[in-house]
């Protein structure tokens, strides 16, 4: 292994992670400085829910595609969401496994699992790029950051797919690109919309608390009463 690849796998990643963590810390600190809107009113609704229940439901919606009309009516979009995010987890894990636990990649089955996950995420990424460009609604709301983040992630998946076997016998180019992309990704993320997951627990918790207090979450779709004859 060349010094450059060793540097990219270790020092560069560590520096990028520290930078990401620092910007995240600043971002959260900035966010928490905004005053939290308080609600004074006594609860509404049937009394079978409360702010805590609303919070749990709201946070759990990510795993309940049937609960929201938007995900219920677009199961394919929801499946894409799952595949894409599993790919992100696999690719990030790979960036730790290669330098710190390469033994795991001796298993062909394990490599295949990683490749299936990032490969599928790559396909979804390409579909999402096409959608972002061709769908007039999505195009109209897209910022340069949206396009760039998506292209960045999709390319990263492609290189993660190629890097997964951890084989540099044919040259270090692929591995080097994967780690350079990972470092860039880590440093870019806090400034881009990819950092949405930082806000996610907050937005969903606040909304869940609000709607739980008002008896709206969990969303009701069936009668909660006996129909009299």
């Amino acid at each position, binding site marked *: 292994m060349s010094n450059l690849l060793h540097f990219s796998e270790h020092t560069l990643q560590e520096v990028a992670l520290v930078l990401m963590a620092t910007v995240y810390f600043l971002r959260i600190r900035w966010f928490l400085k905004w005053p939290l809107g308080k609600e004074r009113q006594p609860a509404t609704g049937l009394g079978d829910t409360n702010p805590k229940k609303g919070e749990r439901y709201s946070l759990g919606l990510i795993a309940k595609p049937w609960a929201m009309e938007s995900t219920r009516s677009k199961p394919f979009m929801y499946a894409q969401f799952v595949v894409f995010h599993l790919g992100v987890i696999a690719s990030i894990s790979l960036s730790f496994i290669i330098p710190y636990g390469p033994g795991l990649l001796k298993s062909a089955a394990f490599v295949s699992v990683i490749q299936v996950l990032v490969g599928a995420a790559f396909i979804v990424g390409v579909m999402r790029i096409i959608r972002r460009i061709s769908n007039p609604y999505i195009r109209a709301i897209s910022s340069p950051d949206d396009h760039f983040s998506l292209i960045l992630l999709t390319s990263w998946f492609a290189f993660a797919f190629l890097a997964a076997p951890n084989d540099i016998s044919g040259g270090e180019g692929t591995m080097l690109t994967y780690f350079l992309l990972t470092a860039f990704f880590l440093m870019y993320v806090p400034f881009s919309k990819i950092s949405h997951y930082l806000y996610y627990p*907050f937005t969903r918790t606040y*909304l869940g608390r609000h709607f739980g207090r008002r008896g709206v979450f969990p969303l009701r779709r069936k009668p909660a009463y006996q129909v009299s004859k």
Partner: protein
Amino acid sequence: MSSTKNERSYKAQKVIDRMGQKLNRQMVGSLAACVHCGMCTDSCHYVLANPGDPTFAPAYKADKIRKLFKHHYDWTGKVFPKWVKAGSVYTDEELHELKDIVFGKCTNCRRCTVNCPMGVDLATFNRMARGLLCYVGIMPEGVEYVAKEQWEIGNQMGVLKEDYIETIQWQEEELQSEMEDPTAKIPIDKPDSNIVYVINPREIKHDPRSILDAAKIFYAAGEDYTMPSEGWDMTNFGLFNGDDELGGAVAGRVYDKVDELRGKKLVISECGHGYRSTRCEGPNWAKKDITFDAESSVITMLSYIKQGKIKVDKSKNPGSYTFHDSCNNARSCGLTEEPRELLSLVVENFQEMYPNRAENFCCTGGGGAMSMAEYRPSRLKSAKIKADQLSATRAKTVVTSCHNCVDGLTDLIGHYKLGMDVTQLVNLVANALVVDGIVEENKKKYAEKEEVSSGASQ
């Protein structure tokens, strides 16, 4: 154009400065968290009724507000403005363009809110944006007019106190004649009552029948209630124009009157935004904790039937009925089951509308849209979604628990020639009332009370 402060109009600068005072963490989360996934797009009736026009998409509309936030309050927008679509406003014309979006292209129905995987609550910051524009005097004429009436006269339709009292007295006479009981009363400012009943000024101006119907129900239940002579308007234009001060003042008038009368419970007649404003948002705006119970009249009527205080006969309401959930009732206050249960007790044939409850579509007259004449054509175009929903039920009558929805639905039913009637639960409950024996009983109670009070005065 460069972004120096000097080049910005006075009003634009005020809007930006005020935004910083109005933002809270929930709103900042909603402004920062959107990933532009577009999952909310189809949840908006404006989008569905204007296929191919992305300017109606919730995220597109939200970005017109978000860009200001990013440019002035979020550091990513300060560092890379173009990259994240941050931008500012410089001229009054731009503020007017924003007005057409926040008032004319969104009814704050929150349907996109419950469909956003990220938990972005566009309607809440859209209301904030309305408030910023109203602060600098940029708003639809109708909104300005109504808000002024509510600030100055104390109710949103400019009803004078004499007219209000006269209408109540007129309905009291109607009650006496319909019940054939000259002792039947609609009390005004009666202290220590169980219930203080507040209404929508529309009931005084256009629908006094609903006051009479409510009075019949209270009469049949033998309720000890009163209507207040002041602070009786439970509607609140502060919800629509984003002015928390107005919201607090209007709700505060109601709360103060209940306190003054030492009422035990505040009952709010059927109105979505009135219920939300008085029951939910009012204490926040008025910065006041309410010390009495407060509920929708739907809950009151249902409890009367369940407790056997009134008897109803559903065969008195023949025909087929469907129910329209007011956005404010259903999506912002969780009032979805009580109206249905009540309806099931007073009509024979109920057809559910789909989607319903918190997933229901707006009547398209929400968010104060009925007072914005300039947006009527686009409102009625977007109403096609509701019209399709209504006609799919094949019901003859649509029931709703909101005066605003009554107007919105009536307008669209006329426009799309659906030939349906619109009514409220109070009308159906009053119509289904079984009053046999009640009149005699109430007359007896009245005579006993008179005897006691004349005995006490001797």
